[in-house]
């Protein structure tokens, strides 16, 4: 039996790859079905939404669902754009803050020598298993005690500590040679300078990865709006979306809900498309050793 080459990461198409395509392409089509549905339904006029038998593809696409999504006032009298604005602001602030907090901690845990370093990183690795939903009650009590109920910050603060994010960043910074930092130190650079001018620029792929992960969490989280916020004008779009779907039995609601669903889904998709090569680069260092 002669050696045939590894065929991992091949440069070009070869007949032997057909079997992989034969499995992957149908599977990918199947997996993309619900996403195709959401695209199609968002642009369907009512008569197509409720056509029998149901058809997947839209015949006469229309923006009506989006128009009625933004033109109708919600039951509480808050315009939908307000929820969307809240979501954008929450996501933007969460992403920036998570990056700053995570990269700063990652830098120290990777490049500084101190006694608790190893233990702290191990605690964080253990916290990869943390499931926020399991401690929703104590979290609620803490937030209530801290007076954060109905405070806009409650959307942001609980999501700032992202164990996966710190984990990936620290692993990534480990790749940056110590000699680079030593050289900067000899030139008289302080830690601010090293962090801002050396670590951050060289950690871009990992930063992109935390950005997309924290964006997804912030953008789609309903936890804060459901449990910690009573004031309607402070809730986010994901929450509004969930109120739409719970009443989708109402006929006209379906297209509007699909339009809202598309708005929920598209930003993550677009961000991922632009960052995917950076994300893959980060994932190469994701192993737990």
């Amino acid at each position: 039996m002669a050696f045939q080459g590894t065929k991992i990461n091949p440069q070009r198409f070869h007949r032997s790859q057909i079997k992989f395509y034969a499995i992957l392409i149908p599977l990918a089509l199947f997996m993309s079905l619900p996403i195709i549905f959401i695209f199609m339904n968002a642009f369907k006029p009512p008569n197509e939404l409720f056509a029998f038998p149901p058809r997947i593809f839209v015949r006469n696409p229309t923006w009506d669902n989006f128009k009625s999504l933004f033109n109708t006032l919600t039951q509480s009298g808050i315009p939908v754009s307000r929820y969307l604005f809240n979501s954008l602001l929450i996501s933007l602030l969460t992403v920036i803050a998570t990056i700053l907090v995570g990269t700063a901690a990652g830098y120290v845990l990777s490049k500084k020598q101190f006694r608790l370093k190893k233990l702290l990183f191990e605690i964080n690795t253990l916290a990869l298993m943390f499931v926020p939903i399991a401690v929703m009650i104590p979290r609620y009590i803490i937030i209530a005690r801290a007076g954060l109920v109905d405070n806009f910050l409650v959307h942001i603060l609980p999501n700032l500590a992202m164990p996966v994010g710190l984990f990936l960043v620290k692993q990534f910074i480990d790749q940056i040679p110590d000699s680079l930092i030593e050289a900067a130190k000899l030139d008289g650079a302080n830690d601010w300078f090293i962090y801002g001018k050396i670590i951050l620029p060289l950690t871009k792929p990992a930063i992109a990865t935390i950005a997309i992960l924290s964006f997804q969490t912030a953008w789609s989280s309903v936890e804060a709006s459901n449990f910690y916020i009573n004031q309607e004008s402070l809730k986010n779009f994901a929450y509004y979306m969930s109120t739409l779907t719970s009443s989708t039995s109402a006929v006209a609601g379906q297209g509007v809900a699909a339009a809202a669903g598309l708005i929920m889904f598209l930003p993550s998709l677009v961000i991922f498309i632009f960052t995917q090569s950076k994300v893959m680069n980060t994932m190469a260092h994701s192993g737990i050793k």
Partner: protein
Amino acid sequence: MSELKRAEGKWILAFLGPYAVVFTIFIIVPIIMAVLLSFTNFNTIQFPDFVGLKNYISLFTYDDVFMQYVLPNTIKFALIVGPLGYALSFFLAWMLAQIPRVPRTILALIIYSPSMTVGVAMQVIWLTIFSGDKSGYLNSFLMNLGLINQPVQWLQSPQYLMITMIIVTLWSSMGVGFLAMLAGVLNTDPELYEAGYVDGISKRWQEIFYITVPLMKPQMLFGAVMSVVSTFQAGYIGVLLSGSNPTPQYAGQLIVNHIEDYGFLRYEMGYAASISVMLLLMIWISSKFVWSIFGERE
């Protein structure tokens, strides 16, 4: 020297501090509180009073719903979704690594994209696909093929809710762990494969088990931990799909829903906390298990 050390300490504190603070407040303290509260009776208004193991005893002896539905459902759901989703992520990643870059990137994007649509966003689409009347997409499709005569109540009948939940969760389970494993396969050293074939490996499965998997163990472990977490995190799906907590005849009731039921609907926080502790224990045990398989032995 000590002054230098003190200056260094300040920097460390300044950089690590913010993360450490939020981490402590929103992760460590809640876990400790959950454990403490689980030994109390707490209705959110009065100060919690200590009741010892009473909550745990009731959980295992009086709570029929927990023993008959929630626990078996959770175990069943986790045992199917966890390993199956994980195996699927690995094999998809492995196959993707065997094709050239451009088609790989496109297919990986499609396969990864469902995991971005967590919970709420996709609820609307699942509700239309699995809709229980004959104009639901799945019902209409199956009736066209002649596989069923009557529309099936996918989301409301206790018989089908669980299977629907499993399918939906599997569909969205190719997340970060999948990407990590894809990167892992791609980064295995080609020379080792050559060496392997010289040493007498002749079949693909041997290649996977003796070369690929051992080489990417750290990524395999990361992927496994992610899949444990996302499996238990997904507990909410039954309520999203059926639209009610409790789910119809408790068919889709998972431990996460039971916590919410007691914590936020009945305000028995102490009891709910004891259920939380059970959930944390289950996650911890599952992770221990995957660690024992893929962790580096020292």
